[in-house]
């Protein structure tokens, strides 16, 4: 072994995020003390981010299969069959901690990383989405974080040249010290040209491609899994700087060499860079890997083996090429101005050997690095159930009108136009349903097929009842896709939770996963990729449990998709689904009554399925002009959004007997939609819904320039828009940080 190795002390081990028993495991595994490079490799491979040591046991229970699933979890991204020899490749990933420290670069490199995951598999990215959670608006850092994160997501995606078409933004004080930045990318590939990380063949050259290696983000992956203390900003870990220009070149170069048949295996260098990419390639293929670090293109001088193995410099790839195609591949990379270097070879030893300056810096069993990673069945306790709140027990609002205006202009329900106008959502010329509705719809190539996409989670439901919250997150994504007319096919998740070493947090994770699994099964909506982000806590306080769901669906003809906007006057409005007036955990309860309480609305998965399938059928048969699912804020919020989007008002019938008015207008009962259809179609629509056993009733008609509710409420659409569009720009204008 190499000389000048530092002594392994408990402190050094702890600094690498390894627990004493994990270190003992290492000693047992290799039969000696590790070198510093080896310690670094273990810390990278065995941290939460790479090994999923706290969640793996529970993730295994998720439904991941369906006839249309080509590749489930375990590769860079999930792959589903969308017919005609085409596949859709997608995944979501978090960049929470880096974005808190350096919002612009943290968010930008998050987008860069997820795009790489998608094009590594041979897919051309066609859309990005994101899900953002910020602290309370009053928190002094919030504005700065919103401004930087949004600019960073736009800065990377816009330059890379992929439309950012959807997302979700919420604020809550529980994210004050731990914001969430979850980015999703969606790509299209040919089903017979999907690329995987599995290396095959012995003695094959391992090729390094892309940008040079610097000292960026060393220990980034470890940081991403460590709790934040109040002094996180003082620690100043190195944050990576993104280079979307290089990534765009890397995309074009990779797709070109793939099309030319040069690639056997490919893996992007994401978290834990060279280490995890090389180990993964070897382990998946049952091979050994030997790297000669003297060959690695470096941006800085004097980099040690330890630094090179842990660097998280962006825009890099590792490949095994067909030997006869090596020169061709090199020429393509040179044409795109990117580095190309052979840095090692595959071996039959199943060992991971790192050489640098003539010395062996690491020599580890490659399979065990992944397979023997710790696996924890952490203790978990379920969240105690919350009492059901009876709508009738809550005082009605002074006026429905004021309640609606207040809700529609609240931070969580207001328009996110200020955000999505900073994203190029029109590039590539295929965006059929733009941001601002339920799900985005993009045409695939020249059509007529299209993809519908959405990101969702209602964290306050998850906190109150993890199982129902997990179900609801999946159901809402499924509903959003359905509301556009598309058939939901599969989902990706990003599980953002607090410290799993606390049994109540672990209980949230287990509960949410149970709910997600149940809903995914019932709705035929399997999980094909995902990401886990734990330890989102500051000073002992965890974030709200936030299992983000990114859903993808397919529509045969994008011309049949519908949006939320009213398309004219005299359209019949039909409410689909059962309304009890559920106000526990509702936006009404929180924003108007100032209480975050009670049990969240239960999710009846059979009803979701039945109602959604019926709605989709009516959309595709051309009976429905506009459709909106009901979620946060309930019926009146959804109607107001439809009115604002179309610039047309509506006249609504009074509440039926048995449901208190505020429960009807603001209740958050699940499995519901509003349909708008021309008068002549309304009878058929109601008949079809009835035949399908779906509860539905006519609730009003579009027309005029105001939303007329009952005696107290006539609100002009322009007044609604002013409140809806006003909050976020007004909030952000109070700052001008560049």
């Amino acid at each position, binding site marked *: 072994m190499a000389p000048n190795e530092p002594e392994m002390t408990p402190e050094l081990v702890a600094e690498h995020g390894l627990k004493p028993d994990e270190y003992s495991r290492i000693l047992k595994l290799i039969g000696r003390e590790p070198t510093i490079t080896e310690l670094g490799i273990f810390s990278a491979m065995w941290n939460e981010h790479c090994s999923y040591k706290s969640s793996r046991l529970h993730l295994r229970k998720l439904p991941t299969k369906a006839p249309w699933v080509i590749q489930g979890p375990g590769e860079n991204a999930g792959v589903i069959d969308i017919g005609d020899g085409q596949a859709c490749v997608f995944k979501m990933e978090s960049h929470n901690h880096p974005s808190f420290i350096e919002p612009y670069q943290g968010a930008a490199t998050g987008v860069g990383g997820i795009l790489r995951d998608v094009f590594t598999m041979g897919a051309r990215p066609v859309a990005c989405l994101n899900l953002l959670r910020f602290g309370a608006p009053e928190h002094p850092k919030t504005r700065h974080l919103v401004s930087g994160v949004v600019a960073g997501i736009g800065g990377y995606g816009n330059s*890379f040249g992929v439309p950012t078409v959807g997302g979700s933004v919420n604020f809550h004080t529980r994210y004050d010290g731990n914001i969430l930045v979850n980015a999703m990318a969606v790509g299209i590939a040919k089903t017979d040209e999907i690329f995987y990380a599995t290396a095959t063949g012995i003695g094959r050259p391992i090729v390094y491609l892309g940008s040079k290696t610097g000292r960026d983000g060393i220990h980034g992956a470890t940081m991403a899994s460590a709790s934040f203390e109040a002094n996180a900003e003082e620690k100043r870990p190195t944050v990576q700087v993104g280079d979307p220009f290089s990534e765009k070149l890397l995309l074009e170069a990779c797709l070109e060499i793939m099309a030319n048949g040069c690639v056997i295996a490919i893996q992007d260098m994401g978290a834990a860079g060279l280490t995890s990419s090389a180990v993964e390639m070897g382990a998946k293929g049952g091979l050994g890997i030997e790297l000669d670090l003297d060959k690695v293109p470096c941006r800085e001088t004097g980099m040690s083996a330890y630094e090179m193995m842990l660097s998280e410099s962006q825009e890099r790839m590792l490949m095994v090429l067909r030997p006869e195609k090596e020169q061709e591949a090199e020429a393509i990379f040179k044409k795109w101005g990117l580095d190309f270097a052979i840095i090692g070879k595959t071996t039959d030893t199943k060992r991971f050997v790192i050489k640098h300056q003539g010395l062996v810096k690491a020599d580890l069993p490659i399979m065990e690095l992944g397979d023997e990673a710790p696996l924890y069945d952490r203790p978990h306790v379920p969240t105690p159930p919350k009492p059901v709140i009876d709508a009738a027990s809550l005082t009605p609002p002074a006026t429905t009108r004021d309640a609606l205006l207040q809700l529609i202009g609240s931070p969580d329900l207001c328009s996110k136009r200020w955000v999505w106008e900073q994203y190029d959502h029109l*590039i590539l*010329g295929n965006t059929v349903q733009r941001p601002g509705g339920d799900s985005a719809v993009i045409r695939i190539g020249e059509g007529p097929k299209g993809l519908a996409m959405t990101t969702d989670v209602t964290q306050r439901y998850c906190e109150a009842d993890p199982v129902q919250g997990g179900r609801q997150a999946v159901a809402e994504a499924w509903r959003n896709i359905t509301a556009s007319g598309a058939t939901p096919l599969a989902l990706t998740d990003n599980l953002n939770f607090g410290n799993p070493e606390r049994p109540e947090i672990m209980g949230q994770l287990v509960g949410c996963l149970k709910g997600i699994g149940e809903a995914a099964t019932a709705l035929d909506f399997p999980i094909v990729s995902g990401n886990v982000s734990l330890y989102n806590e500051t000073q002992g306080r965890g974030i709200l449990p936030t299992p983000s769901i990114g859903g993808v669906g397919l529509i045969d003809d994008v011309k049949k998709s519908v949006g939320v906007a009213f398309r004219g006057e005299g359209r019949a409005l039909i409410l689909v689904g059962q309304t009890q007036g559920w106000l526990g955990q509702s936006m009404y309860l929180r924003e108007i009554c100032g209480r975050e309480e009670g049990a969240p609305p239960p999710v009846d998965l059979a009803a979701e399925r039945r109602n959604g399938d019926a709605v989709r059928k009516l959309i595709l048969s051309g009976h429905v002009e506009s459709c909106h699912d009901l979620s946060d804020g309930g019926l009146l919020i959804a109607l107001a959004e439809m009115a604002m989007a179309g610039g047309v008002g509506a006249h609504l019938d009074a509440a039926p007997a048995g449901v208190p008015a505020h429960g009807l207008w603001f209740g958050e009962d699940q499995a519901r939609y509003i349909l708008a259809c021309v008068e002549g179609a309304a009878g058929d629509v109601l008949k079809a819904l009835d035949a399908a056993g779906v509860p539905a009733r006519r609730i009003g008609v579009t027309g005029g320039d105001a939303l007329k509710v009952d005696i107290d409420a006539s609100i002009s659409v322009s007044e609604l828009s002013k409140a809806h569009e006003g909050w976020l720009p007004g909030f952000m204008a109070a700052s*001008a940080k560049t």
Partner: protein
Amino acid sequence: MRAAVLLFPGLNRENDAMRALQQAGGVKPTLVWHSDHDLPKGTDLVVVPGGFSYGDYLRCGAIAGRANIMNAVRAHAERGGLVLGICNGFQILCESGLLPGVLMRNSNLRFICRMQHLRVERNDTPFTNAYAKGQIIEVCVAHGEGNYTAAADTLARLEGEGRVAFRYSDSAGSIGGDANCNGSMNDIAGIYSERFNVLGMMPHPENLIETIMGGTDGRGLFESLAAATAKAA
């Protein structure tokens, strides 16, 4: 019409431009790689599409504006050939000296992607003959640095010579105020060269050529080019 679309590293709306040329202009354009020295023989129209050439890292369009192939574009323009620069393409044309002025950071300091009305200032050019004079069209913008800025004398000359192609307006055709999305001087969204054979514009007509994508007001530009080159041929 024979059209060439230039491709610099980092551009990303080349396919959008090619699709518009094909669907609305009826031509199949040739893609020309930045390190080439010549344009394809018989080129009538050169399109410099949108994107982030060289990452726009120094100034938008600065590095591409000085590339070799721009000499060929300059020669083409001097011969009276048509040149269209859209978004980053406009920035590149300004940086290369083919058009006067510069595009600075948007006055709100943010990237902005949204639908935008334009007033077509004249319809007697190869780029706008399919529109009516004063017509209000709706296309989209998608840029962070589209704030057109020029010295007072340059601006006076542009106005005096009627070289403003499009101005930002609202749906009723009013100019100024919120309709100006980026702070451009005189609400300028696009300008012509002295001989009206070079047009640079920030908005994206190429993204509005199909009803399903939100409108067809961008078609007129490509139809105009097809008509103008058919006449010339």
